[in-house]
């Protein structure tokens, strides 16, 4: 995967807000993880079109005061290693 590749959620993975857990969760075959708010923000921008740079830009637009570039890259590499993104 290069930086310009569009990011896409792995087939069968679904991001969902769960009021009972007061959190976003990532659902997948026979499993789920509770996400922290930052992770949920990033994942919600993964739409199959945007690449890392575009996701960072979109996030930056939402949170203009934060320095996010490193965070997005780091999260994407963890999420990819976990098989959430492909």
């Amino acid at each position, binding site marked *: 995967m290069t930086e310009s590749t569009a990011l896409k959620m792995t087939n*069968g993975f679904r991001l969902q807000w*769960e009021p*009972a857990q007061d959190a976003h*969760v990532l*659902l*997948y*075959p*026979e499993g*789920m993880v509770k996400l922290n708010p930052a992770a949920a923000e990033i994942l919600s921008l993964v739409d199959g079109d945007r690449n890392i740079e575009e996701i960072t830009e979109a996030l930056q637009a939402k949170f203009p005061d934060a320095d996010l570039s490193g965070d997005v890259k780091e999260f994407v590499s963890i999420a990819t290693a976990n098989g959430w993104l492909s």
Partner: protein
Amino acid sequence: MASATSGPRWLLAELTYKCPLQCPYCSNPTDYTRYQSELTTEEWIQTMRQARDLGAVQLGFSGGEPLVRKDLEQLVAAAHEMGYYTNLITSGIGMDAQRVADLKEAGLDHIQISFQASEEVLNDRFAGTKAFQHKKEMAREVKAQGYPMVLNFVLYRENIDRIEDIMDLALELDADQVELANTQYYGWALHNREGLLPDREQLAAAQASAEKYQEKYQDRCRFLYVIPDYYETRPKACMSGWGNIFLNIAPDGSALPCQGARQMTHIDFPNVRNRSVKEIWFESNAFNVYRGDEWMRDPCKTCEHRHEDFGGCRCQAYQLTGDARNADPVCSLSPDHELVTQAVEKAQKEEMSRSVKVAFRNPKNAKQLLLNDSG
């Protein structure tokens, strides 16, 4: 007794005990034929709704064979509408391309197909019926229709040496994930334990093969290898604790904290036909009795691991020692640990290999076992 602070997260809907297969490692109760009554479509929908309102979000349709239920598509559609992530756990028998498509249409998220072995002869012998070719076709169909494809192989004495063939088959079918799960000894599997439990050498070889494939094919497929707890010295954190996140509804509506719990005759399990899921989860004796750690005895009571493994599996403690409050005998700190090590030592004996007869899961054998028990 402890009470819960939050609702269930997982709902396992055992839609029926009926199954066209007869696997000797089935974890259904050996007396499953006693529970003929099944919840209606409406009752299932109401149960799913109530559990969802408490926060359940992962939903497994299982059995028996859930495809036996003609209303499966309807139940999936209702569950999907409620916001569940829906999993179908099936043998693939009772499935055809049209049903795979209808279930997709209804919103089914995932299908897990189980195989008994890597090739037709052993597969169909252990299934007790002709099944292998159809399973392969259905696995291809599931993949072609865009589901994530998860295959499940239960490992036992006779198929574990062919674990590489099993993984090759999974690769050939283009599986995304493969569960290589050693048999868990509940229900029929416990009854057939002597004929199923592999020896040490077999396990070591299987584990090495699994690791080899995990490494080699990490970009193509996830191979999850689960070792049998009989060979461990610490128990599994069963269900993440009794009444913590997991709710099992049996075909007749009995609510169980774990699939194996039905055998505990000292507990009166509540039924969704006459109590709400909320009441069952938070207030029933059945769900509170082994919740938290107040029920524990030594060695668990004072053990530093008690909040990691919750004393292991209550059903295993019950079925091996006769008292669910004891430590899971898989634990080397349990005074009953030798119940497990004896079974393991027996499995190392030459004469055990291949010759032990297993009882297939079918109504005839169920009747026979009931007679043996009462006689």
